[in-house]
């Protein structure tokens, strides 16, 4: 049910929002269009877009939304892939793009205080001269915001050794759906009480809007080695992944690309990837020099044992950067084969990688799509890319059906719905594949604690009706739709 646009209500709402942020509250078609989509294939128009500059403005915007019984939706850079930032219920989009200050770098406490609109890579660039970085490094790091990273509990290649976003957030200032502002967590060692900070990270904007964060600084490693291993056989590449881990190594990154990915990436990056190989592993080791050298030897042994063709060790930073350039731009490079792509995200136990990859190829074939695999193999995090051409009739349905089958195959292999992109809209209705009705009911009880009236990014994450057993009426503001 798409709500009729209620022009009078929208106009009154806009008037009140203009009272808070002036002409940074906008309702022109161009900007509403711009904020109607994220990186997923879903889309729908918001009523109004606001660009606050301060936390106080965010709090006031939330207050106005409540008075007008209108949901709100926090938005960073819109690179999310699960539809988390897709407007539902003609909400007010609260875009954090103008809240992009690095407020303070506190080396003594090894944290940086940042606003949510700071871009991930901008923070690490600012920290480099001090000898630190922000460890989570999503492949989208040039453009995604820290607020989005926090809301999605994002990962990245280097999270294998350093952990995903939640391990790197000490404190969070948030505007709750009630309009109140509070600080969750703290820079001190053991903030008292329940870990509300841990609950908020990964809640995809459904528990409020983060307006400031203390993110942890990770010291840059004194020694880094990057290796490229190629294999004639995907299953030997996957087995090598398990063998590396079983040997007691925790590489800082352990990424895999299949043949199609290698071809696409090589044509774009000219990094000297072996295009005839069935799979390559990109392995990075970092830390103190002794451990790194010992690790390189272990990897050479594993490579031999699993019949790797070559072991290329990057000679210098330039070669390292070149090897990573291919990996980090792989998604964009897919445009070489088809204009559109749908990027999936599931996790399986490492020991099941070969088998599930095999199923991914079969599923793609069955739906007449092309699958390209570039993924975080070290933690079993698959990222099948389904390349397609949106102009083909009926292709959207095929892409979605294939996605559903990939999720089902991953879960059947003992995996989970998402490793880093989140649930959002895209996987909301698949939650029942992993969780029982009572599990979801419990999650919804917890969400409701923060947002009993369903103002914050409503109808995401948990399927509607999770609380039917409790004669629960989804507390969705009037006019919301799915």
């Amino acid at each position, binding site marked *: 049910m798409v709500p009729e646009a209620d022009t009078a209500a929208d106009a009154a709402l806009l008037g009140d929002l203009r009272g808070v942020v002036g002409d940074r509250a906008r309702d022109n078609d161009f900007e509403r269009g711009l904020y109607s989509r994220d990186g997923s294939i879903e889309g729908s128009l918001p009523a109004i877009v606001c660009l606050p500059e301060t936390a106080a403005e965010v709090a006031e915007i939330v207050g106005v939304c409540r008075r007008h019984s209108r949901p709100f939706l926090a938005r960073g850079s819109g690179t999310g892939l699960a539809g988390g930032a897709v407007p539902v219920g003609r909400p007010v989009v609260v875009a954090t793009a103008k809240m992009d200050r690095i407020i303070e770098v506190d080396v*003594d*406490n*090894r944290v940086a205080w940042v606003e949510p609109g700071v871009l991930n890579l901008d923070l690490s660039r600012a920290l480099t001269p001090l000898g630190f970085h922000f460890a989570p490094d999503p492949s989208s790091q040039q453009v995604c915001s820290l607020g989005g990273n926090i809301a*999605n509990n994002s990962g990245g290649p280097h999270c294998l050794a350093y952990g995903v976003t*939640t*391990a790197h957030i000490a404190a969070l200032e948030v505007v709750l759906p009630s309009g109140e502002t*509070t600080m969750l967590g703290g*820079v*001190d*060692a*053991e903030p*008292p009480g*329940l870990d*509300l900070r*841990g*609950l908020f990270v*990964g*809640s995809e904007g459904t528990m409020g809007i983060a307006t400031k964060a203390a993110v942890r600084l990770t*010291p840059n490693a004194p020694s880094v080695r990057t290796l490229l291993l190629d294999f004639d056989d995907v299953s030997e590449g996957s087995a090598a992944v398990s063998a590396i*881990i*079983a040997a*007691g190594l*925790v590489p800082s990154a352990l990424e895999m690309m299949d043949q199609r990915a290698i071809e696409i990436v090589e044509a774009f990056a000219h990094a000297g990837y072996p295009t005839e190989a069935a799979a390559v592993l990109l392995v990075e080791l970092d*830390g103190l020099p*002794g*451990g790194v050298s010992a690790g390189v030897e272990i990897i050479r042994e594993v490579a031999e044992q699993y019949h790797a063709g070559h072991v290329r060790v990057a000679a210098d930073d330039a070669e390292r950067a070149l090897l990573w350039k291919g990996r980090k731009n792989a998604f964009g490079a897919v445009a070489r084969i088809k204009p559109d792509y749908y990027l999936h995200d599931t*996790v*399986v*136990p490492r*020991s099941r990688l070969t088998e599930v990859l095999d199923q991914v190829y079969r*599923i793609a074939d069955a739906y007449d799509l092309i699958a390209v695999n570039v993924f*975080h193999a070290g*933690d*079993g995090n698959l990222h099948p890319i389904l390349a397609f051409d949106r102009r083909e009739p009926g292709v959207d349905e095929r892409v979605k*059906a294939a996605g559903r*089958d*990939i*999720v*089902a195959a991953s*879960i*059947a292999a*003992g995996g*989970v719905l998402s*490793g880093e992109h989140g*649930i959002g809209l895209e*996987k909301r209705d*698949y939650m*029942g*594949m*992993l*969780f*029982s009705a*009572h599990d979801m009911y*419990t*999650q919804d*009880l*917890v*969400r*409701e*604690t923060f947002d009993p009236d369903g103002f914050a990014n409503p109808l995401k994450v948990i399927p509607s009706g999770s609380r039917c057993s409790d004669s629960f009426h989804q507390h969705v503001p009037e006019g919301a739709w799915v």
Partner: protein
Amino acid sequence: MSSGTGPAEVSASLAARIDPAVTEFAREVGASDPITVVGTRTHWHVGGELAAGTREIRAPAGVWEHEPSEMTVRCGAATSVGELSAHLAQTGQMIPLDPADDAATVGGVLACGFSGHRRLRYGHVRDLVLQTRHVDATGKVVTAGGPTVKNVSGYDLPRLLVGSLGTLGLLAEVILRTLPVPPAAQWLHGDGDPFAAFDLLYRPSSVLWDGTQAWILLEGDPSDVAAEAARVEPLGFGPTTDAPHVPATGRESMRPSDLRTLAGTGGGWLAEVGVGLVHRVEPVDAGPVAPANAALMTELKQRLDPAGRLNPGRSAW
């Protein structure tokens, strides 16, 4: 054209994975009377005295699944840390829970939510928890998180449960992330400046300071441990075979930079440099919780345990 499994079949297969011992524990918890889980009683009085007449039960115990190449382990919550460590050590793995007493149960350590002395290197215990299975106030099993080393499916209830002192749910089973045992470990000891040492070293495992002396734990490749030790030798640190005694009565939480203010305040404490935790021989009151946060915590308890039957008398804040 579908080539996969449907949601119904998949979740049915997940339900089938619930261990019979967990189902039995849920039956024992039931749905009506005040109830608590007893671990090893090493920290039985944390968070207040248990209300009289509360029924005491035990969680299931045992290491149920450990696949070394997955670096994960599934165990009953009443498994002792000692038993779990011994099991993992057979394949060169560990979980740095580091309770003061190895007899403590995994469920008790997670319910208290206190990290051990190697937090500086390995992070907080909650970052090691991948999946929890708890029994809620209605006697039903709830699974949250997931079995894989990486997962963002649904809300992060495991992080909420860690540190909740059994007041929101009773832990039955957990899946934890394991780590390789480092090839070498060396304690250093001396009367040098621990803050200067911390700044010099690359990710030491622990830097502990009692106001006059400091202890540093280095872990890693033997050549790195030796090289790092040499870097802090000029500051007055040399090898020792003895780890310091960590007082286990009071825990005071500070910002790491504020630890410096402890200089000259006498003895009876040991501080974790870089972390901000001060272990004291006297009890310490936890700091105040901001009103908006206290309201949320109260509301969470109210929604998850409306009758207040879980660990009555105890509070996590």
